[in-house]
């Protein structure tokens, strides 16, 4: 039967959804939190296995009456999302126990959220995009508010919710206008439409606005620092990696499939957004004393670099964006993981950069790991972060955006300052009082070491992956028009 075939091709999402429901039921029967955690990990592990298989073996195909895709970019997006979730759950479990907020509902929510992300990253129709986006967002609203004895938690959840609802309105209106202009919600069918009437452009703009909000590009970013600071640290990692990846993959798909002919006309818009985002993100990150808040602003800055890739509007640009997302997932989950570890040892306010003084020598392994992740985030060579930035910027240059790239490179040079500042405190300052760090759990440190190795690995030999990503766009309409 066709539906069985479709479900098989959609297996990671199906497993995650069933897993979410199972875990929810377990909670209903008052299972121990350990059981819930283990079950979650089992389901995610299977999903990760299937997603890896899909990533390597599955040829691109459309499923569910062309509502979604499998293989190609869909498999890539699914893989990053499930990968990010897998490690997030490991870190989150430990972290939430540490800060005494280990609610059992967190696990089904994370699973449902992942399901939404997969739907979003595989979508081939604006309706699917919308449902996926909303599923993801609803879960994130709730997850942002876990820590409620800290005022910031509720504040961030509420703000995120109100602003999210606001942007959803624009998104829906955008879909409506696009439907009005093209008579379809399917991405390829919209893409076939070339006569850009005003309604069409209106639809495009509102759709882009909604995405810019979700990925927190300036000036739609204002919720980000609050939400990222208020959420539990590992959930912040999750939002900024898996969540952003899903949104960006969907955005790239929309650009590649639904708007291939207007890529050059979007360049100016994306360039301006990229410019604003890079400058503001980096400038504000620079004056932060709170490490978590610094990472939040720096994640805005990274969105700016990603928009350089989008502005290029070429196959090189889009594949650079996808590689960037992969690299960013490794290094950012890792960085937040170490921050969460330090925080867990004390209390949730242990985020000021000064309290990091001398910590690098306490648990050398954690200090080294954080340094690797920060180096990568700063874009120092032999790290995945450098290659990602390099690919994005070279795509920009190829597209003739020299001045934009110059600003980008300058901004990323400036970003070294605030990443290094953390390391200066870690290693070059004496701690004021003796802060003792308990030994991290084996699985916690192994996960982080694994992420660090991946960060370095993709710094040294990104060749295979970049080539694979490039192949996803081989049937792109852009390749036909590219010089």
């Amino acid at each position, binding site marked *: 039967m066709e*539906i069985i075939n479709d479900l098989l091709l*959609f297996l990671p999402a199906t497993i995650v*959804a069933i897993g*979410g*429901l199972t875990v*929810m039921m377990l909670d209903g029967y008052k299972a*121990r*939190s*350990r059981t819930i955690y283990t079950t979650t990990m089992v389901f995610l592990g299977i999903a990760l296995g299937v997603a890896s298989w899909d990533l390597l073996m599955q040829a691109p195909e459309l*499923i*569910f*009456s062309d*509502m*979604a895709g499998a293989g190609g970019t869909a498999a890539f997006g699914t893989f990053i999302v499930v990968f990010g979730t897998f490690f997030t759950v490991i870190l989150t479990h430990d972290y939430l*126990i540490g800060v*005494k*907020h*280990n*609610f059992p*509902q*967190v696990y*089904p*929510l994370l699973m*449902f*959220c992942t*399901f*939404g992300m997969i*739907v979003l990253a595989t979508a081939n*129709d604006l*309706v*699917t995009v*919308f*449902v*996926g986006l*909303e*599923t993801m967002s*609803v*879960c994130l*609203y*709730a*997850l942002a*508010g*876990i820590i*409620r*004895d800290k005022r910031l938690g509720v504040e961030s*959840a509420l703000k995120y919710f109100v602003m999210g609802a606001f942007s959803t309105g624009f998104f829906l*209106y955008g879909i409506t*206008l696009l439907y*009005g*202009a093209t*008579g379809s919600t399917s991405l390829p069918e919209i893409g076939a439409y070339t*006569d850009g*009437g*005003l*309604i*069409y*452009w*209106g639809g495009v703009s509102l759709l882009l606005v909604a995405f810019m909000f979700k990925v927190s590009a300036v000036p739609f970013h204002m919720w980000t620092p609050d939400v990222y600071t208020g959420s539990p640290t590992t959930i912040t990692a999750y939002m900024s990696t898996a969540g952003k990846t899903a949104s960006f993959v969907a955005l790239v798909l929309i650009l590649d499939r639904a708007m291939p002919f207007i890529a050059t006309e979007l360049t100016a818009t994306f360039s301006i957004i990229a410019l604003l985002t890079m400058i503001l993100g980096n400038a504000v990150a620079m004056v932060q004393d709170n490490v978590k808040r610094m990472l939040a602003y720096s994640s805005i800055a990274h969105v700016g670099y990603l928009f350089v890739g989008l502005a290029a509007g070429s196959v090189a640009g889009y594949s650079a964006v996808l590689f960037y997302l992969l690299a960013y997932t490794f290094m950012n989950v890792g960085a937040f993981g170490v921050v969460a570890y330090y925080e867990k040892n004390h209390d949730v306010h242990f985020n000021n950069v000064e309290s990091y003084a001398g910590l690098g020598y306490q648990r050398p392994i954690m200090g080294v790991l954080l340094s690797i992740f920060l180096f990568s985030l700063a874009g120092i060579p032999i790290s995945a972060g450098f290659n990602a930035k390099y690919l994005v910027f070279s795509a920009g240059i190829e597209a003739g955006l020299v001045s934009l790239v110059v600003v980008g490179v300058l901004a990323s040079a400036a970003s070294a300052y605030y990443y290094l500042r953390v390391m200066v405190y870690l290693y070059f300052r004496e701690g004021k009082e003796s802060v003792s760090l308990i030994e991290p759990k084996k699985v916690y440190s192994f996960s982080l070491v694994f992420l660090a190795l991946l960060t370095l690995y993709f710094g040294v030999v990104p060749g295979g992956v970049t080539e694979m990503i490039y192949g996803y766009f081989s049937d792109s309409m852009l390749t036909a028009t590219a010089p």
Partner: protein
Amino acid sequence: METFFFVFVATFALGTALAMVLSKNTVNSALFLILHMLSVSGFYLSLNAQFLAVIQILVYAGAIMVLFLFVIMVLNMDEDEQIVTKVDFKQIFAVLVTVIVLAQLLYIVGNFTGALPDFSQQELMAIGTVEAIGDEMFTTFLLPFEATAILLTAAVVGAMLLAQKNVNVEDEIE
């Protein structure tokens, strides 16, 4: 006739929406919102979407707004707590940008030149039926439809998480 109906419903919808925002009493606001929902279902009727019109009334006016009213009653909000306080620079600016964005959208919609698919009255009637919608839902739009189920479940779980009594979680020492 159709035009007259549209103008009537549209005026009503706009009026109730404005009244809802400007009303100082929260209960009144909620009641105006119900009226607004009703007028929107009027739009659906005029577009031959009978099923949607009924659902609109049942779900929004019936279920959701009743819940809203309960919440307002339970919280027992002070009537003096006004939403609009004083006019300051920020508000003027907010009104200004809203007007600009409204003008832009009106400009876009006003310039609509494309041709929508032309359906006969019979076809339109057929599209709006429960059967037609159900058929689409379970074939073409199966994936989004099922995903919506997860979305709603997630919303319930999320609400449970947020509504849970404060920090009283078993601390497993392992």
